[in-house]
């Protein structure tokens, strides 16, 4: 028997939870079909998380691709189907990705599993990010380097801790519903060991009574704790947090059954969500909003 999971019309970090709620009661080897026929939009997080969902299953799930041409075409431009065809049994018409020419995508979905992949990602983002951050988000040209550093550190989290490969994507768009401004969004998702297991692997680590995914996220994201004893470790996420804070951005990291967020004034998300449906690995989203001109 195959269980059908329905993709919401708009797939982002919030609505992806609806998919996970449908997935949670199912055993890992249950056949599933992800029905995205009526999806109209997806954020970089939505698409990279969808790939990790497939990665987490014992059997390749089915995926019914969006019926709307512009949606399917956008997913193709983001490079989704190139990775999805390795992980899903695709049903429906898959548009061909546009070849050559200048893409409107800042960084299409890229697999990350080793250090060289991070070099590749950083190299590809630098040129496009510079013009976009300055021109469209009113962010100081000097901040471009910080953006690439943030991307680099977020990707290294996969290489250093996940234990298996993941994906990164970067896109800029107008976020009408929440903010009414343009944003640039980095999504970095993997289906690896997650923060709790990573920290548990630290030699001699003592676990407290309430040790769980939420506390592991607090330790790593807020206090900069790493599984490595080297005192220089843990600076990557701290750097990401600083960059996000400087530009009134938002950082959210989901792992296991919890999600932690650095919430800016413009958002009403909770800083810590617990008892979420369990999902392996770590899923990170960084949102940098367009800066309003000084009055």
């Amino acid at each position, binding site marked *: 028997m195959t269980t059908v999971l329905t993709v919401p019309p708009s797939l982002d970090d919030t609505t992806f939870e609806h998919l996970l709620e449908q997935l949670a009661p199912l055993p890992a080897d249950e056949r599933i079909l992800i029905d995205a026929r009526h999806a109209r939009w997806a954020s970089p997080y939505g698409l990279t998380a969808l790939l990790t969902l497939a990665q987490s299953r014992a059997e390749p799930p089915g995926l019914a691709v969006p019926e709307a041409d512009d949606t399917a075409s956008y997913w193709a431009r983001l490079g989704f189907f190139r990775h999805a065809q390795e992980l899903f049994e695709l049903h429906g018409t898959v548009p061909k990705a546009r070849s050559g020419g200048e893409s409107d995508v800042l960084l299409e979905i890229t697999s990350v599993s080793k*250090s*060289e992949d*991070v*070099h590749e990602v*950083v*190299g590809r983002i*630098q040129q496009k990010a510079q013009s976009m951050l300055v021109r469209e988000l009113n962010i100081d040209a000097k901040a471009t*380097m*910080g953006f*690439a*550093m943030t991307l*680099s*550190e977020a990707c*290294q989290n996969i*290489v*250093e801790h996940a234990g298996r490969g993941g994906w990164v994507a970067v896109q800029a768009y107008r976020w009408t519903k929440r903010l009414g401004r343009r944003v640039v969004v980095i999504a970095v998702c993997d289906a690896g060991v997650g923060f709790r297991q990573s920290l548990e692997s630290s030699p001699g680590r003592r676990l407290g009574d309430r040790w769980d995914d939420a506390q592991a996220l607090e330790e790593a994201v807020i206090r900069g704790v790493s599984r490595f004893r080297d*005192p*220089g*470790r843990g*600076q*990557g996420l*701290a*750097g990401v947090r*600083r960059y996000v804070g400087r530009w009134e951005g938002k950082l959210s990291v989901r792992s296991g059954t919890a999600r932690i967020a650095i919430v800016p004034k413009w958002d009403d998300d909770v800083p810590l969500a617990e008892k979420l449906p369990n999902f392996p690995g770590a899923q990170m989203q960084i949102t940098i909003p367009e800066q309003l001109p000084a009055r």
Partner: protein
Amino acid sequence: MINLINVSSVLGHCGPFTNLVTRPTGAAVRSLIEQSLSAAHGAVTVIDFSEVEMIDFSCADEVIAKLLLRFGSEPAREAYFVFRAASEHLDAIETVLERHMLALVIQLDDGAVQLIGAVADAERRCWETVRRMGGGRATAIAIELGRDVQETTALLDGLARRRLLMHSGERYETVGGGA
């Protein structure tokens, strides 16, 4: 004697990279730098970041912090560093310096040297005084600082132990003063 290490060239030996990112790359770069330092006992080495487009926190930790930790205080590995063209990368560099309570000397575009990182106010004033004076004996530096000689000598020796000043005979000089 002054040695010059061009980080961009070293990076080129580690792979087709233009950015100093990731820990493995940082460790590889540091290893090559250390090899070229083996014959530089007691000398000043200029680590030149010209042509390095970007350095992230992890790589800054591997290259800069670990280099300073290994060569910063062991008498057997006496080495002095000046970091050139590092101003573009201060965010990453200062972050790792603070994390490890380290400090270093950078050379600005106009050739002037500047102390950055974790240094107490009294140490910073002392270092600045030595720089302004172009070096000198503890007694002269103490007069300029307006402190007693014993206190000043303790500050100077502390800075010398951290390889931020060079101490030769009775004279103290800023590292990179003539770089």
